[in-house]
C-alpha cells in the first residue's frame, strides 16, 4: 500500500482520538452530543476509506450505518430526550476537566506502548489502527466514569463502540458477521436503553443514573 | 515357714501401726503441754478417748445418708492400708509390692475424698466450709507430694518404697541439695495433710477457723472414733514415711532374723520420738495462719518440690 492511503487512514483514525479528547472537556450536553455526531461522521469516513483501500464493499454498509445511526438518528433522538425530560443542560463531572485530560493522555500513551510491543510482522496499518482504537475505547470508558449524567454516559458508551468499529474495520477481511453483530448489538442496546428510558420516565423525573441509584438493592 | 514368718511380720507391722498411732498423738500432746508448762493429759489419753467413743451411741443428723455412715470405715481402712504399705521397721514386706509410693498418696487422697463428701452430706454450712477448704489445701498438697515422690523416685530409680529405702540407706546417695528441698517440702506437706498448726489447729472448735474439724462436726460415737483413729494413723504414716525415706538407717531389709528386727524396731521408735518432739516444738513455736495464707505456704512447698526435681539434673550430671 502506498504512503498516501496509509497517511489518510492514519489521519482519520488520529482525528477520531482527537475528537474523543474534545468530548472529555465538554461541559454542555448539546455540545457533547454534537461532538459525538462529528465523531460518528469521522468514523464513517475512516470506515469508508478502509472499504476503499481493502476494496471490501460490505464495509460501506458499516460506514453507512455509522453515518445514519450514530451521526444523525441518535444525536437527534438524544436532543429530543433532553428536551422532553427537561434535563438541565450542563453536565456535572465527577472529576475535574484538568485531571480528566491528564488521565486521557496517560491512557493514550498506555495504549501506544501496548500496541508497539506487537511484532512488526503484523501490518503497520493494523497496528496503528489498533493503537488508536484502543485509546478511543479507553477514552470512551473515561467519559463514562467521569460523567454523572446518564445521557453523557450513553454518549461515552457509543464513542467506545466507535472505537470497536474502527478496530473491526481495521482488521483486514474480518467477516461481515462481526460488523453486523456490532451494529446489531448497538441497535439492541439502543432499543433496550430506549425502553428503559421510557419506563424510567414513567417512574422518575430524570434519567440521572444517580437518581436511579438512590435505591441500591438493600438499604443500609 | 518363711512365708508364714513374712506374713507374721506384715501382720505385726499392720497392728503395730494401729497400736502406735494413738500413743504417738498422746506423746505429742504431752510434749506440747509440757512445753507450755502445763501438766497435760496422760500419754495414753487417746486410747481412753477412742474406747469411750466406741462405746457411745451414734447421734446421726436427720438427713444423713448411707454414705455418711459408711465413710468412717472407708477412711479408716484406706488410711490403715496405706500405713501398712509404708516400711516402718522392716522393708521388703510380703505385700509391699502390692503398691508403691504413688498408691500410698492416692489412698490418702481417696480417704480425703470421702471425708469431704461426708462433710457435705448433712447439708450444714460448716461441712461445706470444711470440705471446700480441705479440697483447696489438698489440691496444692497432692501435687507437691507427687513432685516429692518424683524427685525421690528419680534419685532412687523406683517408686517402690522398699527399694527407695534400701537405696537411700546405701552410701551412693551422697548429700544432695534436691533431696534437702524435697525433705523440707515433705515436712510442709505433712503438716498440711495432718491438719497441724500453722495450717489448721487440731484442737480448735471455733467453726470459722477449722478445716478438718469442720468436716467431721456431725460425727459422733464410733464413727468419730474411726475418723480420729484414721487421722492418728495418718500422722504416724507421714512420720514413718519421712523416717524411712530420709532417715533409712537401721531398717531391717527383710528375712535377716529377729536381731535385725529388734534393732529396726528400736531405731524406728527412736525416730518417731524425735520427730514427735520436733513437731511439738514447732507447733508451740508458730501461730496458726489465716486460711488464705495456706496457699502461699503450700505453694512454697510445691515450688520447693519442683525445684528439687529440676535440680536433680544439675546436681548429678545426667
Amino acid at each position: 500500500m502506498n504512503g498516501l492511503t496509509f497517511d489518510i487512514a492514519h489521519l482519520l483514525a488520529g482525528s477520531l482520538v482527537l475528537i474523543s479528547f474534545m468530548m472529555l472537556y465538554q461541559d454542555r450536553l448539546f455540545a457533547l452530543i454534537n461532538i459525538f455526531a462529528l465523531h460518528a461522521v469521522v468514523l464513517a469516513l475512516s470506515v469508508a476509506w478502509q472499504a476503499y483501500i481493502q476494496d471490501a464493499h460490505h464495509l460501506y454498509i458499516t460506514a453507512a450505518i455509522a453515518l445514519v445511526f450514530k451521526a444523525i438518528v441518535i444525536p437527534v433522538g438524544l436532543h429530543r430526550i433532553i428536551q422532553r425530560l427537561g434535563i438541565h443542560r450542563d453536565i456535572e463531572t465527577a472529576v475535574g476537566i484538568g485531571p480528566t485530560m491528564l488521565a486521557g493522555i496517560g491512557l493514550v500513551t498506555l495504549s501506544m506502548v501496548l500496541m508497539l510491543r506487537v511484532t512488526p510482522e503484523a501490518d503497520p496499518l493494523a497496528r496503528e489502527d489498533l493503537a488508536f482504537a484502543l485509546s478511543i475505547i479507553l477514552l470512551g470508558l473515561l467519559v463514562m466514569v467521569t460523567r454523572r449524567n446518564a445521557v453523557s454516559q450513553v454518549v461515552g458508551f457509543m464513542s467506545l463502540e466507535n472505537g470497536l468499529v474502527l478496530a473491526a474495520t481495521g482488521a483486514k477481511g474480518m467477516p461481515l458477521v462481526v460488523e453486523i453483530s456490532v451494529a446489531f448489538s448497538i441497535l439492541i442496546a439502543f432499543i433496550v436503553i430506549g425502553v428503559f428510558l421510557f419506563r424510567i420516565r414513567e417512574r422518575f423525573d430524570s434519567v440521572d443514573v444517580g437518581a436511579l441509584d438512590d435505591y441500591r438493592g438493600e438499604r443500609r | 515357714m518363711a512365708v508364714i514368718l513374712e506374713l507374721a511380720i506384715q501382720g505385726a507391722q499392720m497392728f503395730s501401726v494401729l497400736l502406735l498411732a494413738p500413743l504417738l498423738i498422746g506423746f505429742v500432746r504431752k510434749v506440747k503441754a509440757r512445753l507450755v508448762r502445763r501438766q497435760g493429759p496422760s500419754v495414753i489419753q487417746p486410747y481412753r478417748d477412742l474406747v469411750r467413743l466406741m462405746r457411745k451411741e451414734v447421734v446421726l443428723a436427720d438427713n444423713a445418708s448411707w454414705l455418711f455412715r459408711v465413710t468412717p470405715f472407708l477412711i479408716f481402712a484406706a488410711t490403715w492400708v496405706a500405713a501398712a504399705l509404708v516400711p516402718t521397721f522392716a522393708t521388703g514386706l510380703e505385700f509391699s509390692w502390692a503398691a508403691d509410693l504413688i498408691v500410698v498418696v492416692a489412698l490418702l487422697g481417696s480417704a480425703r475424698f470421702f471425708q469431704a463428701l461426708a462433710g457435705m452430706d448433712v447439708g450444714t454450712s460448716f461441712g461445706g466450709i470444711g470440705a471446700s477448704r480441705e479440697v483447696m489445701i489438698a489440691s496444692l498438697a497432692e501435687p507437691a507430694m507427687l513432685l516429692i515422690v518424683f524427685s525421690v523416685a528419680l534419685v532412687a530409680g523406683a517408686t517402690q518404697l522398699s527399694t527407695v529405702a534400701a537405696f537411700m540407706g546405701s552410701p551412693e546417695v551422697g548429700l544432695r541439695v534436691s533431696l534437702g528441698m524435697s525433705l523440707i517440702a515433705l515436712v510442709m506437706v505433712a503438716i498440711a495433710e495432718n491438719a497441724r498448726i500453722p495450717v489448721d489447729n487440731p484442737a480448735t472448735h471455733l467453726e470459722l477457723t477449722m478445716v478438718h474439724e469442720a468436716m467431721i462436726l456431725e460425727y459422733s460415737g464410733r464413727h468419730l472414733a474411726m475418723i480420729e483413729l484414721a487421722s492418728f494413723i495418718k500422722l504416724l504414716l507421714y512420720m514413718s514415711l519421712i523416717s524411712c525415706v530420709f532417715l533409712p538407717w537401721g531398717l531391717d531389709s527383710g528375712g535377716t532374723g529377729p536381731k535385725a528386727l529388734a534393732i529396726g524396731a528400736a531405731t524406728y521408735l527412736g525416730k518417731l520420738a524425735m520427730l514427735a518432739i520436733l513437731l511439738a516444738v514447732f507447733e508451740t513455736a508458730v501461730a496458726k495462719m489465716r486460711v488464705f495464707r495456706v496457699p502461699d505456704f503450700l505453694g512454697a512447698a510445691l515450688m520447693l518440690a519442683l525445684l528439687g526435681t529440676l535440680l536433680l539434673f544439675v546436681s548429678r550430671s545426667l
Partner: protein
Amino acid sequence: MISTVALLLCGPAAFLATAILGAAVSRRTFATRLVYGAAFVISAVLTAIVAGHLAGNSGEASATLPLGLPWTGARFRLDGLSAFFLLVVNLGGAVTSLYALGYGRHESAPHRVLPFYPAFLAGMNLVALANDAFSFLLSWEFMSLASWALVMAHHRDEANRRAGYIYLVMASFGTLALLLAFGLLAGPAGTYAFDAMRTAHPGPLAAGAVLVLMLLGAGSKAGLVPLHAWLPLAHPAAPSHVSALMSGIMTKVAIYGFIRVVFDLLGEPAWWSGIAVLLIGGVTAVLGILHALMEKDLKRLLAYSTIENIGVIFASLGLALAFKANAMPSAAALAFTAALFHVLNHSFFKSLLFFGAGAVLTSTGERDMEKLGGLIHRLPVTSFVFLIGCVSISALPPFNGFASEWLVFQAILRSPELPQWGLKVIVPAVGGMLALSAALAAACFVKAFGIAFLGRARSAAVERAHEVDRWSLAAMAVLAAFCLLAGILPGFAIDALSPVSLSLIGDRMPVQMAEPWLSIVPIAESRSSYNGLLVFAFIAISASLTAFFIHRFASHALRRSIAWGCGFTDAVPAAQYTAVSFAQPIRRVFGGFAFRARETVDMPAPGSLEPARLKVDMHDVAWEIFYQPITGAIDFATERLNHLQFLTIRRYLTLVFLYLVILLLVLALWP
C-alpha cells in the same frame, strides 16, 4: 481376612439403614425402641467382632470399595489401632443405646434425634476404618455433621443454636487443617492412600507442618486449649446420651486421628515434637479442670472435665513421641499404652457420668447444681453409680482412672534417661501439671457429687424426683462395673493393647497377666508395681472387719437428731454451701491467672439496711485472647467492604475501568 473388614463395613451400612428407617418412622411411638434397639444390637455385634480380632491378635485386614475418590477408591483397613478404637466406639455405642432405650422416651423431639443418632455412630465407625485421606475426611466431617444435627435437636433454645453454630465452624476449621495436612502427606501427585503416605516420608519442615496442622485439626475436635471453646457449649446442648457419645467417644475418635497420622503415617518424629504435644497437653489438663471447677451446670462441668482428660491423654502421647524419637521403645510403649488405657477408661466413666447427669435431668428437669441437692435419698441407685464414676474420674484407687494415671506417672519417671535437656526439664514439670490437675479433678468431683447428690434439696423439683427406668440403670451399672474391673484388673487391658504399641512403637510393655497376684509391673518389680486387686481386697476386708467388730463388740446404738447449726435449729436449705461458694477458695488461689477473676465486695454503711453484695467477674481468657479478636476483625472487614454493595453504577464502572487499566499496565510492564 477381607471378611473381617467387610463384616465391619456392614456395621456402618446397617447404622445408615437404621438412620433412614428412623427418619421414616420417627414420629411413631415405637420408633424410639426400634432405632435404639437396632443400634444396640449392631454395636454389640461389632464390639464382639472387634474384641475377637483384638484378642485373637489376628493382624491386619483391608478392603477397597469403588467409592469416594475415583482413582483411589474408598479404602478401609483394620489393624490393632483401629480395632482398639472401634472397640471403644462400639462398646460406648452399645451402652449408650441401652441407656437411650429408656432415656430416649423422654425426648421431646424424637424426629430430630432418631435419624441422626445411628448416622453419628456410623460416621465414627468409618473414621476408624478409613485407609485413605478422602474416606477419612469424609467420615470425619460426616461425623461432625451428624453430631451437629444432634446438637441442634432442641433448636428453639437460642443457646443451643449458638452452640451448634460455633461447633460446626470449629469442626470445619479442624477439617480444613487436616485437609492441608493430608495435602502435604499426599504430595503434588495426590497419592491419598494411607499405604502410600506411610512409605513416603516428608522432610523435616513438612513433618513439622503436618504435626502442627494435626494439633490444630484433631486438637480442635478433641478440645485442646485454646481450640476447646466449642466443646463446653456443644456437648451439653445435645440430649444426654448424645453428650455421652460426644464427650466419651467422639473425642477419642479425634485422638485416633492424631495417633494415626502422627505415629503411623508421619514416620519417625523429631524430638521437639514431643515437647509441643506435652506442653499443650499439660496446659489443657489444668485449664480444663479449673474451668470445670468454676461451673455450676452439671453437664458443662462434665464437658470441661473431658477437656482435662484429653489433656492427660495428649501429654502421655507427647511423652510417647519424645521416647520414640529418642529410640527408647520400651518407655515409649509404656507412655503410649498408658494413653490408650486412659482413652478406654475415660470413655467408661465419662459416659457413666453423663448418663447420671441425664438421669438427674429427666427426674428433676434441672442441670443447674444450685437447684439440686439431696438426690442421694431420691435416686439411690443413680447416685451410687454416679459416685463410682466420680471416684474413677478423680483417679482414686482402686478404680480405673487411677490405674491409667499411675501408668502415666510411671512413664514420666523414665524421663531422666532422655538425652535432651529441654525434655529432661519439661517432662517433670508437665508431671507436676498432671498431678495438679488430678488433685483438682478430685476437688471438682467432690463438688459435683456433694452439691448435686448430698446435702438437702435446694428446689422443689428435687422433692418430686424419682428413680429412673431400668434400661438407664442397667447401662449405668454396666459402666460402673467396667470402671471397677478395669481398675482392679488393668493387666488384661494392658496385654490387650500390646499389639497396638507393637505395631506403632515397635515395642510393648512386659506381659502383665503372668505376674503373681495379677499385679501390674510396667518396668521391673523392684522399681514399681501396683496391684489394684489386692488394694481393693485389703480395703474391703479391713473396712468390713472393723465395722463388724465394732458393731459386734462395741456399740451399735444409733439415734437420729437434728443437725448442729450453731444453735439455730432449722437452717434453710439455701444456707448450704453452693457450687459457687464451694469453688471459692480454689478460685481465690487459681482464679487470678486462669480467669482474671476479680471479687468486689460492697459493704453497706453501718446502719443501712440493704444487703452486702459480693460480685465476682471472671473472664474466659482463651475466648478473649483468641476468638474475640477474630470476630472483631471479621466484623470490621465486613463493615468496611459492605459499602461496596451501595455504590452508584458509575462507581462500579470506575472499578471495572481501573481494573482494566491496571491489568493493561501490568501487561505493559511485563518483561
